[in-house]
């Protein structure tokens, strides 16, 4: 026992090394669940946000109006439910609820499902606010050309809303990266659960949590850089080149 750690710092290194497999697997699962859950959640959020933003037109036929109102009702209910309850409770209800109903869902899939549902609910509101922030004139300009309302939404409004939403999407991404830690309650072996396991043998919980704190920090840093890059890419360029070939001498 020549190199038994003698202080906290050494214990951190010791545990990180000894349980590197656990931490790697935890990192992988944390990323898998948060990345896939968030991306799928974004898609769901866009869909729900667009449905919620769709105006019910008095001129439409009753069937079309009925269907739209029904979907809008479902969306509102969904958003309220998931924004109004903690993710840790959602995880328990979704996981055990599905199992009790006879669906043999594994913890990882359940974790992704909860993350995506949670993200979708928040994202829906963000998307709706993003759409609202685009001047009504953009839509009218498109409609006046004969574009359909749906086409106007996808080609004109959403691309502009997206640009405004990117910072909020980044925010949500980082939040989810950390929030997946609550999924330990349904047995997803993400970073938090692995740290608990790793800390148990030597009763060195603090040191073990310090290891994952560092991992979380690095992950968040990397992802925030990635989003900063996306934000930069979507920004309008400052300069443009005059098309001299179309310059006329007369003017």
């Amino acid at each position: 026992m020549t190199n038994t750690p003698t202080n906290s710092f050494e214990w951190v290194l010791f545990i990180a090394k000894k349980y590197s497999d656990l931490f790697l697997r935890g990192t992988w699962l944390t990323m898998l669940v948060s990345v896939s859950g968030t991306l799928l959640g974004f898609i769901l959020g866009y869909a729900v946000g667009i449905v919620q933003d769709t105006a019910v037109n008095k001129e439409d036929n009753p069937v079309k109006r009925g269907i739209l109102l029904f979907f809008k009702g479902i969306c509102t209910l969904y958003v309220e439910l998931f924004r109004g309850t903690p993710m840790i409770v959602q995880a328990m209800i979704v996981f055990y609820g599905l199992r009790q109903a006879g669906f043999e869902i594994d913890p990882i899939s359940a974790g992704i499902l909860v993350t995506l549902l949670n993200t979708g609910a928040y994202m829906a509101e963000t998307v709706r606010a993003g759409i609202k922030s685009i001047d009504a004139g953009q839509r009218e300009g498109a409609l006046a050309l004969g574009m359909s309302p749906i086409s106007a939404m996808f080609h004109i409004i959403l691309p502009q809303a997206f640009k405004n939403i990117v910072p909020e999407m980044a925010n949500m991404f980082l939040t989810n990266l950390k929030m997946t830690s609550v999924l330990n309650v349904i047995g997803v072996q993400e970073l938090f659960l692995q740290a608990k396991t790793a800390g148990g043998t030597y009763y060195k919980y603090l040191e073990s949590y310090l290891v994952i704190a560092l991992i979380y920090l690095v992950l968040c840093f990397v992802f925030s850089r990635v989003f900063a890059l996306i934000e930069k890419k979507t920004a309008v360029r400052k300069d443009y080149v005059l098309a001299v070939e179309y310059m006329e001498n007369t003017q």
Partner: protein
Amino acid sequence: MSEEIIRVEELGKSFGEHQVLRKIDFSVNKGDIICILGSSGSGKSTMLRCINQLETQSCGKIFFHGSELGKKQKEINEYRSKVGMVFQSFNLFNNMTVLKNCMEGTQKVLHLPKKEAFERAIENLKAVGMAPFINAYPSQLSGGQKQRVAIARGLCMQPEVLLFDEPTSALDPEMVGDVLNVMKELAKKDLTMLIVTHEMDFARDVSNRVLFMDKGYIVEDAPPQKFFSAPEHPRAKEFLSRFIAG
């Protein structure tokens, strides 16, 4: 008599209790250049927006080449592709360059091949003197430049009628002339236009008909010579005297 393009019958529009348009009746013939005058709040914009179906009328009918315009979205889209609109606030697509702004409608609505859409865009941008700016984004242009691009965007659809809602009201005075000159050129090319404006000289010199609106009614419909020299309605007289005095 030349061919009728749009006819409006007994058109009315209310916002809740507020009746903004009442019993609007008139028709637009091919080659018409109609200026719509009236004081603020008289319903000019609302009428134009009803004609283009950005607002749905509360009552009355719109006929396009003699057949009534239905309520089906598809029918309205197609009608709009033939009846263009230029807005006071330009409404250029902020996420697209000048060139893309002018190709969006022809590609997505008329389904022109890219090459043809490009050629049409360049041709119309040249006509308004904005071809050198094809790579610029709207935020990089002055108001007058934006409005000229917006006109080019409308022209690319080769509309039968182009509606203008105060196209120069948001512009600095020195840019008003550029936009009016473009519109005068269009008038010479026999484009049918419906123009809400406060530019009296333009209305007098370029239009062939003046509609004067008051409190949601069209109270006078006359050739400009007659309207400007001998208006009949007391509100029109008052309106004109204000302009001559100011």
